[in-house]
């Protein structure tokens, strides 16, 4: 589904990424974790086609990424800037569907289903700025879902909400995944990368490169308390933590 090959990028002399290789199969949820400033966001922007990497290439669904690929959804960390304050929640969610040429009623129905999936049906007529941060990020997720992307990119999506909301959103993510949707989940939170991922790719300090690609051998059904107690979870968290801190296997 997604193939990142020998990708590297520099900004004005500063090497952000070097020789990044990563393969993601259809339907997988891969966490990318690494210390701040390791080029995680740069990598995601390259996958999204929002920028071209200096070296290497990104292949999505068999085609090399030169512009934004079709069927792509992105959830940015900064929901307050990514949602449009002049549109209400429903119209924000329905906006990407305009390109598909569906009639208005259909777009609204799809938006309503997506809002239902994230538990925000009651807020469809409200404006983003009338909602809490966690609810706004749910709107962003609903907007991505309504678009039914085959590839969903999430750039530190839960980085700006409080701890409890964060756990709720993590569980929401686990609920909505599936149906062939491939998810690339960028975070700097080690626990989170293990909790939501099928695999965890660890990036080193800048210049960022993949120093470990670890399968997460945890049951599909996860729970904020019991999953985090499992020996495998504790072991993985420690391993990822050491990799992120020490920058080498």
């Amino acid at each position: 589904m997604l193939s990142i090959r020998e990708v590297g990028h520099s900004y004005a002399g500063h090497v952000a990424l070097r020789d990044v290789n990563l393969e993601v199969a259809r339907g997988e949820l891969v966490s990318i974790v690494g210390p701040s400033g390791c080029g995680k966001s740069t990598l995601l922007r390259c996958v999204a086609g929002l920028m071209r990497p200096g070296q290497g290439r990104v292949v999505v669904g068999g085609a090399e990424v030169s512009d934004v690929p079709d069927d792509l959804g992105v959830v940015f960390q900064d929901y307050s800037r990514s949602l449009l304050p002049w549109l209400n929640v429903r119209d924000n969610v329905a906006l990407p569907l305009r390109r598909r040429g569906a009639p208005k009623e259909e777009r609204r129905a799809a938006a309503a289903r997506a809002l239902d999936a994230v538990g925000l049906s009651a807020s469809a007529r409200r404006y983003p700025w009338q909602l809490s941060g966690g609810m706004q990020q749910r709107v962003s997720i609903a907007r991505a879902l309504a678009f039914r992307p085959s590839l969903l990119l999430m750039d530190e999506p839960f980085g700006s909400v409080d701890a409890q909301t964060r756990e709720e959103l993590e569980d929401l993510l686990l609920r909505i995944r599936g149906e062939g949707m491939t998810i690339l989940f960028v975070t700097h939170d080690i626990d989170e990368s293990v909790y939501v991922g099928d695999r965890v790719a660890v990036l080193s300090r800048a210049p960022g490169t993949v120093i470990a690609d670890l399968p997460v051998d945890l049951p599909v059904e996860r729970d904020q308390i019991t999953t985090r107690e499992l020996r495998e979870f504790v072991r993985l968290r420690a391993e990822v933590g050491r990799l992120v801190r020490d920058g080498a296997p």
Partner: protein
Amino acid sequence: MSAGTGGRTVVRLGAGVLHRWLALAVVVAAWEVGTRAAHSPFFPAPSRITSRMYHLWFSGPATRLFLTADATSNVVPSLLRMATGLAVSLVAGVGLGLVLGRSERVFAYVDPAFQFARVIPPPTLVPVFIVVFKLGTQMQIAAIIFSAIWPILLNTTDGARSVDRLQMETARVYKLSAADRVLKIIFPATLPKIFAGLRLSLSLSLILMVFSELLPGTANGIGFELTDAQSRSDLPTVWAAIVLLGILGYVLNAILLAVERRVLAWHRGSRGTDA
């Protein structure tokens, strides 16, 4: 907020309004007393100015909204010219501004010329307008546009240039069409700036409306009536025109602010100033 402080806020707001109008009333009263005492033919009393305004413009039949023939032949044409000039400035300024704001290349070409053109005082261009346009309405509207377009154009350009990068990237990710990008993202994101420009342009167009009616080839309008009264030494009418212009400026600005409050409710809300 407790009910007590809420009540106090209301009282304070009420007191604020009262103070404002009270101050105006005191000034007008002092003016009345002063002019009556002075007996100067150049400074008629406010009561005389008001009665002149009433007789000149607002003593018409109810079927014509109480407007007199003088009002429909002077005040209305003035307002129509101003509205036309402002409307053309708005449409052209916003359209051009959006293009300039979103195209670095066009901006680089055109900006120096615009910065040069906008600092030219419009009155100095009147000789040019006289040659280029027909005397009368055409030239008057051109003068209004040449003055009123700049704040709208420059504000729109500035606003369109500073649309949030993340909003534009969202549009790219979800592959919005070019038309949708303009109508659903760039234009609404620029609206607060457009309104800021429009407020300036409104007062400029009122000034230029009067000024353009002082030019040769003018047959009607508030400015025309003003100069005409001046030449006849009809000072109450001169003052009536001045007061009318003040009232028009105030009312038009109030209408614009009311529209802005409605249209930009999201803007105030998203900035947390008024949810």
